[in-house]
């Protein structure tokens, strides 16, 4: 039995894979002050549902995979460790200056961001390595010892060390580490070249500072999680999801906690890819996860999960760059709680402000006064006020309607229903723009894509989003409301190894490249034989980052072979580079030399084959809840008017029968809206497949 548990801001989602490989989904409230409680509560719900004691349930589990927002929450709320930053003398303002750049050039209200570590806790280490990797100024060890004394006196809890050019010659950083061990025992530290051996000192310094600041807290949290699970009867392996879409043993994540920043959301594309493969031949998969305040989108191209090097915590240029690759998920302020408002010029906006979990939309009756996307959907009849979250929460339709009337319909001079429809349209457009940024703007035609709708509110406008994008198919998976937890069950033990080796298309160093690739292969093999042992299978994937001569931003090209044996292989990579460049940027420069810079090998150990072709109940959501809906409900579509929609029960719908809207398809976890032009069916794999 395996458990996948994703802790979100409001709910903790749990999916249990039982010994027949059937899935069971549960949702418990998250307790922000004690997230482990939510994990144990969700497990207790599962135990009750399965007529077991919690200890009995846990004793059957071989693995618990955990997604957590603990790290990101600590950063956002400023509760990370008191961290010092040690850097090369003469360059104390790396974290202050960042890389420059700004959004909104006329906005003089927004404050310039404070450095991740204050200048007051920044210390200059007398030393300098130069760009060739040779020592320009030797390390002053006595000065480092003095700094260590100061850090102790000031009760510093963690230390980040980032020296210029430590990536070409790490001796100084290593020695600083030894001196800290010796003179500041028990205080954790992070060395930049070990954590993130990347060029550009701000990014490397920022990753190092963020990582160090999380070490004490994540060490405690993950230690506490494993301990309390063990106390409750769990003797299996605890794994934590990483920002890069894999999982690592909890102990390893405690050593490099920066990898847990996007733990959880990173799983949505993994689950999305799986469900797309079951029911679609489209080469590209758009995965959209609708939450209460954000809309997270990602794109899987040709089966590849996309990574980005530029991950910001907060807004670009106003937040902090993690300096680390992570699964490329774009998040915009659009969700069920997004607030609709009309500005002084008469323009309707939805978001980015959100009513949050508290007070929530007006219809929750918890004190919210501003109309939200959820209030609009209720007013339009899409959501059943008596059957929200399986009937556990009664919604106040009248209050929702009044708020929309007062704040939107009145100012715009349109009817209540048209106003509600407009709110959904604007929110839909914000979501469309988020997807356009990762598709159209990257040269990807949504017509070649399938849209996966995750999150409880995905069904409300996924059809409309797909239609606007020209996306021919929408899939709402049966586990869609807990997409990240479902993804966790499909994820692999993954580790990525990177090396920098410079060569060009005109003077290609086969031997050098082959040596680098061989070293990367060996590192992958060590991982496969170590943490990955016991996996059912594994594979290693190679890519190269390349650019035209004198560009500084690389694009990624997959390598088919892991050794270069003949000229045709190079010619193939060169042509792939030109083609990728032209596809993304509309031009190619065939006369230009191509520079190959970064080489990456990714080892994936498949813990359990998650079958694409499910047999019987394997991999399917098992439901024991007896409940069905039928009949019709009057709903409203902007530009069409009121229509009677047939009601269907998601969980008990017969598969492979094609229906046509207008219709509402409901389950305890989600509501899906289909208009008159939409056809839909439940597929053999359990998903709802829709054609806008």
């Amino acid at each position, binding site marked *: 039995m395996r458990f996948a548990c994703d802790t979100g801001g409001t709910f903790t989602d749990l999916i249990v894979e039982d010994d027949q490989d059937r899935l069971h989904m549960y949702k418990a409230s998250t307790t922000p002050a004690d997230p482990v409680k939510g994990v144990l509560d969700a497990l207790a719900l599962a135990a009750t549902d399965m007529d077991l004691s919690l200890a009995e349930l846990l004793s059957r589990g071989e693995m618990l995979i955990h997604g957590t927002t603990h790290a990101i929450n600590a950063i956002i709320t400023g509760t990370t460790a008191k961290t010092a930053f040690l850097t090369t003398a003469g360059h104390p303002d790396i974290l202050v200056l960042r890389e420059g750049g700004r959004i909104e050039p006329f906005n003089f209200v927004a404050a310039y961001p404070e450095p991740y570590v204050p200048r*007051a806790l920044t210390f200059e280490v007398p030393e300098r390595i130069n760009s060739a990797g040779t020592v320009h100024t030797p390390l002053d060890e006595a000065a480092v010892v003095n700094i260590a004394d100061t850090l102790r006196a000031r009760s510093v809890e963690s230390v980040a060390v980032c020296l210029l050019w430590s990536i070409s010659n790490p001796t100084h950083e290593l020695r600083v580490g030894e001196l800290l061990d010796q003179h500041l025992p028990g205080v954790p530290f992070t060395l930049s070249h070990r954590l993130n051996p990347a060029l550009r000192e701000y990014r490397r310094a920022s990753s190092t500072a963020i990582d160090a600041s999380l070490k004490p807290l994540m060490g405690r949290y993950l230690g506490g999680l494993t301990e309390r699970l063990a106390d409750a009867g769990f003797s299996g392996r605890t794994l934590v999801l990483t920002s890069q879409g894999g999982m690592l043993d909890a102990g390893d994540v405690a050593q490099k906690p920066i990898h847990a920043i996007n733990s959880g959301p990173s799983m949505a594309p993994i689950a999305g890819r799986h469900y797309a493969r079951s029911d679609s031949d489209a080469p590209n998969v758009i995965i959209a996860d609708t939450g209460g305040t954000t809309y997270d989108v990602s794109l899987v191209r040709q089966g590849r999960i996309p990574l980005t090097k530029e991950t910001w915590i907060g807004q670009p240029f106003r937040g902090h760059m993690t300096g680390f690759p992570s699964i490329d998920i774009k998040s915009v302020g659009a969700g069920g709680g997004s607030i609709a408002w009309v500005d002084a010029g008469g323009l309707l906006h939805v978001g980015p402000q959100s009513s949050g979990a508290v007070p929530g939309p007006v219809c929750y009756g918890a004190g919210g006064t501003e109309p939200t996307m959820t209030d609009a959907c209720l007013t339009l009849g899409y959501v059943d006020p008596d059957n929200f979250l399986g009937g556990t929460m009664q919604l106040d339709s009248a209050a929702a309607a009044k708020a929309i009337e007062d704040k939107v319909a009145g100012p715009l001079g349109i009817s209540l229903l048209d106003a509600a429809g407009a709110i959904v349209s604007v929110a839909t457009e914000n979501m469309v723009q988020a997807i356009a940024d990762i598709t159209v703007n990257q040269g990807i035609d949504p017509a070649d894509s399938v849209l996966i709708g995750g999150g409880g509110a995905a069904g409300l406008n996924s059809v409309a989003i797909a239609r606007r994008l020209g996306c021919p198919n929408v899939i709402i998976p049966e586990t869609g409301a807990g997409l990240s937890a479902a993804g966790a069950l499909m994820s692999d033990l993954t580790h990525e190894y990177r090396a920098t080796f410079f060569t060009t298309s005109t003077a290609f160093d086969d031997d050098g490249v082959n040596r680098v690739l061989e070293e990367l292969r060996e590192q992958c093999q060590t991982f496969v034989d170590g943490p990955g042992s016991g996996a059912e299978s594994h594979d290693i994937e190679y890519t190269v980052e390349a650019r035209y001569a004198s560009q500084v931003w690389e694009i990624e090209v997959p390598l088919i072979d892991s050794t270069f044996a003949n000229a045709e292989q190079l010619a193939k990579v060169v042509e792939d580079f030109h083609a990728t460049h032209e596809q993304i940027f509309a031009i190619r420069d065939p006369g230009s030399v191509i520079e190959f810079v970064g080489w990456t090998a990714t080892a994936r150990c498949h813990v359990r084959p998650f079958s694409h072709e499910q047999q019987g109940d394997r991999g399917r959501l098992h439901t024991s809840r007896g409940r069905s809906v039928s009949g019709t409900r009057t709903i409203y579509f902007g530009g069409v008017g009121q229509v009677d929609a047939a009601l269907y029960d998601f969980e008990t719908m017969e598969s492979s029968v094609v229906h046509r809207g207008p219709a509402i398809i409901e389950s305890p976890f989600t509501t899906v809206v289909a208009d008159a032009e939409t056809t839909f069916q439940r597929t053999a794999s359990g998903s709802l497949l829709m054609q806008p």
Partner: protein
Amino acid sequence: MTNTSMNDQLDGAQLAILANRLEGISSKMGNTLLRTGRSGVLNRAKDFSCCILTAGHDLLAVAESLPIHVLSGPDIMAASMVEFHPELHRGDAFLHNSPYHGCSHPADHTIIMPVVDDGGTHRYTLLAKAHQADIGNSIPTTYHGTARDVYEEGALIFPAVKVMRDYETIDDIIRMCQMRIRVPDQWYGDFLAMLGSALIGERELLALGAEVGWDTLETFTNQWFEYSEKRMIDAVREVPAGVHTAHSTHDAIPGTPPEGIRVTSTVSVDPEAAMIDVDLLDNADQMHCGLNVSEACTRTAAYIGVFNSIDHTVPKNAGSLRRIRLHLKDGGVVGIPRHPISCSASTTNLADRIVSATQRAMAELGDGFGMGEVGCFCPPSTSVVSGVDPRTNKPYVNQLFLGHTAGAGAPQQDAWLTMLHVGNGGMCFIDSVELDEVYTPIHVRTRRLVPDSEGAGRYRGASAIEVEFGPVDCRMEAGFVADGKIHVPQGARGGHASQPSEQLKRTGANDLEVLDQCSIVWVEDGEALVSVAQGGGGYGDPRTRDPERVRHDVSEGLVSRTRAADVYAVAITEDDEIDVEQTAALRGDRRHV
């Protein structure tokens, strides 16, 4: 969205949708330039802009561009394209950098591309403007401060010259440029990046036109301008009525009067008519130097001065610009300089002084408006450097962006630290030391903020930044035109000025040598340039600054305790706490004395 006929009005939702899509197109054009550019000035510093204009040359969407590049100028450039090439076809593109026909300055090579629908009608015009590392000037810098005219400047001038026909580049022009521009491969790569950017924009706009219909887009355009104008009317009505004149003076360089160039801006606000007039007539005639401000930059600088001073959420396009009236001098040093006078450094030095005078005049109209003067450009840390890289034996030319702050105090907030200069709005990146050391044979010794250097105020200006760097195993030529040493950036509404800029060279014997403010100097192996680039002036009386902000600055080592007491009248203890009683005494609060 379905097609609508021309008479239908779009509702607020539809308007928002199309506005987002157009902004999306221009930001996608920008992304293409950043990712594919070859010179550091594009791919490391992001010194470029993209925008969309209507067929009638009205500015429609500018995304996140450099303000000085786009608010005005693209309109004049697009008009010159149509004037010189009355018949436009799909697949045409033009190279434009003529400051006499609307370009900001010759270093800003621009690709202009008409978007032509299936019926052959010119619908929109796209612009991708990118500052070049080199443009074939007589000396290896794109800012030729002392050029007596365009001939001495030496720039190749392209007044909307066709460089692409039917999607095929016209190689005659490219060969000319490659013969005349230093580092021709780098230039060609940047040229391709600009073309790619325009082609991406065209692809997107054609798709948008096909999807929603060109008539709907035209309806949108008109309504979007009306909406923007309405937002501007509301913003102008917030400003108190009045007339105020302010001055800002650029330091003297060869070719200017010995007292420098004083820029005068008179701002009149009429809230009832919802109009702002900026009068720049009372300024000197054009001069025999490279500081003359092109018409595009004069207009834009005045607009920036206004937009920096009011509600920042007003959309910037032809609609909101209807509410600003400009009065320019034909043949002025700011205004409309005429060929063959040089506008080589037109986007920065004197243009920044126009903005400064204008936003300080705005500040005098009422508390809550305007801003202090932003720090001056172009310090040695942003030199154009050149030489031969000993590691490859190849020549190099590039502009560094090694360190700048410049931000000024605003009515509700401290400075944005990394403004670069006021016309830039902080949009450019700062170079990574490691990246510059790889791509250029230099060693950066220090880069640090300077304590006690900020323009004090209720909201303070940025600290100055000191950068020291020199060549490695070779000699290096560096060109810069540094302002702000004599006439330092002033504060607004009682805010203080910041400190003077400095341009020095550290010799092999470790002596500091003062350099001319406008220099093209050789730096030998073992020597280093020392640049101090200042922050901007403060806003409001520093003695009214929130003591907690002062405490924070002291704790962060940006302001000393002495200065906190002397200038801000805030007493900070050795433990970085506010001494409340002492502070009250310093501030003359009678209740505590």
